[in-house]
Every structure is written in C-alpha cells, then in structure tokens.
C-alpha cells in the first residue's frame, strides 16, 4: 500500500480550489493503484467545516496541526511539522498546489530529505510501480515528461486547474492531531499581512480571465474588461506593456515575468501575442482573441478570434452574455 500526503490549503472556512482538485483527482485514481490519501490541515483553529469538506473529497486520513502560533504563515514551523509527519507516514508523494505556499514549502522539504521535487506539474499519472508527470518548461514552449519509480519519496506542486476534475467521494477518515513544538525564537518573523485589492485577487485560480493589452489604448478602457469579467464571474489580467504603462498593477501581469494562468477561457483583448505573453497563458483550455490586426500572432494560438475593434466588440460581448445569463 502506497501513501500520498496532500497539504490542504483553506481560506474563509473553505478548501481552496486547488486542494479540492488534488484530493478529488487522487481519491478517484489513487485507490485503484493501492494508494491511501493522508491530508494535512494546518491552522490556529481549524473549523469542523474544513475537516468535513476534506473528508468529502476523499481523504482516507486527516492530520490536524493546530496551534495558536500557526495563525500566520511561517515556513520554518511548517517545514518542521511536515517533516515530522513525513517521517511517521513514509509517503511516496507529498503534494502541494503550485501556490505561493506550495512554491515556498515544497522545495525546502525536498532538500530536508535530499529528494527530487517536480515543480508546477499539469498532469500526473499514477501506476503501481511508476509515476509519470508532465510539466511546462521554457515558458510553456515545451513540456518535460518525468518518469519516477513510485517507491521513492518525491515532492510535487500541481498547477491550479490542471488535473481532471472528479466528483466528491466521501470517506470516513480517521482524524488525528499532530503536535509540533514551536520555537519562539525563529530567524524568520512574519510582521504583517496586507490584503491585496479585490480586483487583484487570485488571478491564478480564476476560471475565466479577460486580459487587456496595449490595444486597450488607455487605463480607463479597462472598465470595459472589468464589466465583461463581472458578467462572466472572472478576473482581469494584463500584458506587460499595460503594466509598464501603469494602467494596471504588476500583480495582474500575465506572462513569462508575470503570472502563469490556466483558466477555462482566456480572452485576450488588444494583445499582440508576444512569446513572453504566451508563456503565461498558452495552457488555457480555450483561448479567445480580439484584435484588429488579422496577422497578430495571438490568432495562431487562439481557438476563436474576432478581427475587429475591441472598443466596439467588448461591450457587445458583455451585453450578449448578460442577456444569455438573464434568460
């Protein structure tokens, strides 16, 4: 019997989408290959609701690390706690979302155990003897396929919205508590947490992204994209030229030196489709481009393109969708 350790992220009493995706995927594919899932939940006081939701996504076992000292993120404490849990459980895979937290913790832990880490995977295929991973490299211009024997401890971060989604499969997991000794004198101290403005939130988790480029012509025109995003329940992104011009904040930049996103629909408005922009969005499920230049490179990677003036097209699209949802 193998074991998968999944680090569960939660916010405002709910699991983050990426954690549901990882648990759902492995509870449906892991069982067939004799893997059990242990979920780790960390917090200063963990609500019952979060435990139930973790169970509903198919964890066989839940380990709670609960301590007042965990109200704020400190990688040193979490590395210590997870290291202790790994030593006790001997898992084959330790899985995180490729989120700020996963990107920070997973490589530290991988080094504690001097083991391999596979970063930012978009597909995992679990078999009894072998595990296959696929991950984008060179800004999404190529994919790396990695095959590792399943009896080695390996650390993984999974790109949000990548794994095939599955339905809940409720288990009645054993729930344990794990206590870790928190040292008060750590050389890493979180002093303050500042929330970003709502419109900057969670671009990487958004299901639909409406993104604007230099073709938007001025900052005020981004209102058009915000309206479209609102109707779709999505988020607004931008190209680097827009960020450099100061029309939108860096936190919404998509591309090689910005965010990597993988929404269901990516709508690129007035974006030419430079290689460095494609690096951040080329694995989106469906790409829509609106551009007045029929030769713009963005059309080469788009599923659907409209050749025309975005100032005319975007408001009409917003209206059309608003009517559709009203019906």
């Amino acid at each position: 019997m193998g074991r998968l350790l999944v680090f569960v992220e939660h916010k405002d009493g709910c699991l983050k989408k990426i954690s549901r995706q990882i648990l759902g995927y492995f509870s449906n594919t892991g069982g067939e290959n004799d893997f059990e899932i242990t979920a780790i939940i960390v917090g200063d006081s963990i609500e019952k609701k979060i435990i139930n939701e973790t169970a509903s996504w198919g964890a066989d076992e839940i380990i709670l690390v609960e301590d007042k000292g965990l109200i704020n993120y400190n990688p040193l404490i979490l590395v210590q706690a997870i290291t202790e849990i790994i030593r006790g459980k001997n898992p084959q895979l330790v899985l995180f979302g490729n989120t700020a937290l996963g990107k920070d913790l997973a490589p530290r832990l991988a080094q504690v155990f001097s083991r391999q880490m596979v970063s930012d995977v978009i597909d995992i295929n679990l078999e009894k003897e072998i595990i296959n991973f696929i991950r984008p490299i060179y800004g999404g211009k190529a994919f790396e396929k990695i095959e590792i024997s399943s009896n080695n401890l390996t650390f993984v971060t999974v790109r949000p919205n990548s794994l095939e989604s599955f339905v809940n499969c409720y288990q009645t997991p054993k729930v344990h508590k794990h206590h870790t000794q928190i040292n008060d004198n750590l050389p890493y101290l979180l002093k303050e947490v500042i929330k970003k403005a709502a419109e900057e939130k969670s671009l990487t988790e958004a299901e639909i992204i409406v993104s604007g480029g230099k073709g938007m012509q001025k900052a005020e025109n981004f209102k058009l994209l915000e309206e479209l995003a609102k109707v779709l329940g999505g988020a607004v992104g931008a190209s680097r030229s827009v960020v450099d011009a100061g029309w939108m904040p860096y936190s919404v930049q998509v591309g090689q030196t910005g965010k990597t996103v993988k929404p269901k629909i990516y709508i690129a408005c007035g974006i030419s489709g430079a290689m460095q922009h494609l690096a951040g969005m080329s694995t989106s499920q469906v790409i829509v481009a609106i551009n007045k230049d029929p030769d713009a490179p963005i059309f080469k990677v788009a599923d659907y393109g409209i050749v025309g003036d975005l100032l005319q097209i975007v408001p009409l699209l917003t209206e059309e969708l608003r009517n559709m949802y009203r019906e």
Partner: protein
Amino acid sequence: MKIIVLVKETFDTEAKILLESPNNISQKDVKYIINPYDEFAIEEALRIVEKFGGEVILCSVGREDSQITIRSGLALGADRAKLIVSGATDSITVSKFLAQSISQEGFDLILAGWVAIDDNNAQVPARLSELLQIPLVNVVIEIEISEDKIICRRDSDDKIEIVETGLPAIIAVQRGINEPRYPTVKNILQAKKKKIEFLYMEKIKEKVNINISYDVIQSKRKGLLIDGSSPQKAVTILVEKLKEAKVL
C-alpha cells in the same frame, strides 16, 4: 557587505525550442541571456552595496561558455564571478555545488531570482537555505536593510507578507523589486578585466531512477477566425461557439 548573487544562464526569451532527440533540447544557434529574475537580484545587490559598501560576487553553475553571459553580469557592475563548470542541471546537484563553493567563499547575504525561466523549477534558493542552514525569504518585491535586520515584502498570491529576518540570509526576488540598469560603456570595458574563477565539478550520477524526455508544443487550437466588420454578428457567433465548446 559581501553579497553573493546566484546567476543562471538561460535561453533568450525569444528562442525557439527544438529537440535533437526526445531526451535532448537542441542548443544550436541559441542566444543566451542571464535569467531575467537573476538580473533583478544583481540590481538589488548593486544598490545595497552602493548604500552600505561591500562586494558583489556572481556565482553560477553552467557551461564553460557561460562565462560570456556571466561577463554581461559583471558589466552591470558586479565585482567578480565564480563559475562552476558542470554538466549538472538538476536542482539537487546544482544546489550542492553552490553550497560548497559559497560556504568556502563566505558571505553576508545571498540574492537570487526566485525562478529560472528555462526549467521553471524554483527550487535552488530553498535547497540552498536548507544546505547552508540560513533563512530564506521567497518571492520578495522589496528589501529594506538596516544595521541588524532585513525587512522584506513578499508576494504571496492574494496577500503581501512583511517578513523580518537577519543576516546571513538568502532572499529570492520577484519582478517589481527594481528596474535593472543597463551596462555603461565604462563598465563593459572594465568587465573584461574582472576576474571569473572557474571551478570544475564532476557530474554526480543520480541515485534515483528518473527518466526525463521532452515534447515541443504543436498548437492544437481550433484557430477559427471570425470577421468583426459586423461586430454584433461576430459576437453572436463567438458566444455560440463557446457554448458548443461547453466552457460557458
């Protein structure tokens, strides 16, 4: 202050990726650059040294020819460089080599880009912090150094975290921290005389059974172009198509 900056040579962002074989990415006719995130680290190091005095040392694991790219980092104003020549590219080995050479050199602060744009691994700073047993602050967009502490603003998805740490430490930087300078003619000339120390390391055979192959993307996109000269019609077609594709 003695600052080590980790530098990696990567393919130019415009480079086309071609395969020599399923296990080999072609390096033919490729233009190399310093990993853009490492440029932010170099710039930050230069600014710290301009304020507090000290030395900026670039440290890289790469090919013998990486010295050309490393020299462009010296042209920005770094004082000298160490190039560890090795065929190793996996994060475990690279971090081990860096740890050895850096602990011999000694340092107050290590700066690095948080990720490299080629392998997309984002592992070396964290591995190094474990190997050297010094704190890492990751994905940092602002550094403020005072006598006995460092305050960092760190980008953490929907939050900014303000973290305090001390020296020695390793800080992995994110775009937004600064705007890197361009090399001056004077600095380019001086860079030719600056010292690059070469260290040769055997590639260690990996213990773990791991098999790596590559695939280059061919667009599997539908590529349907809709004429927008009648915008309302175009929008109606688009919405229909999105419904058919079951994404709406």
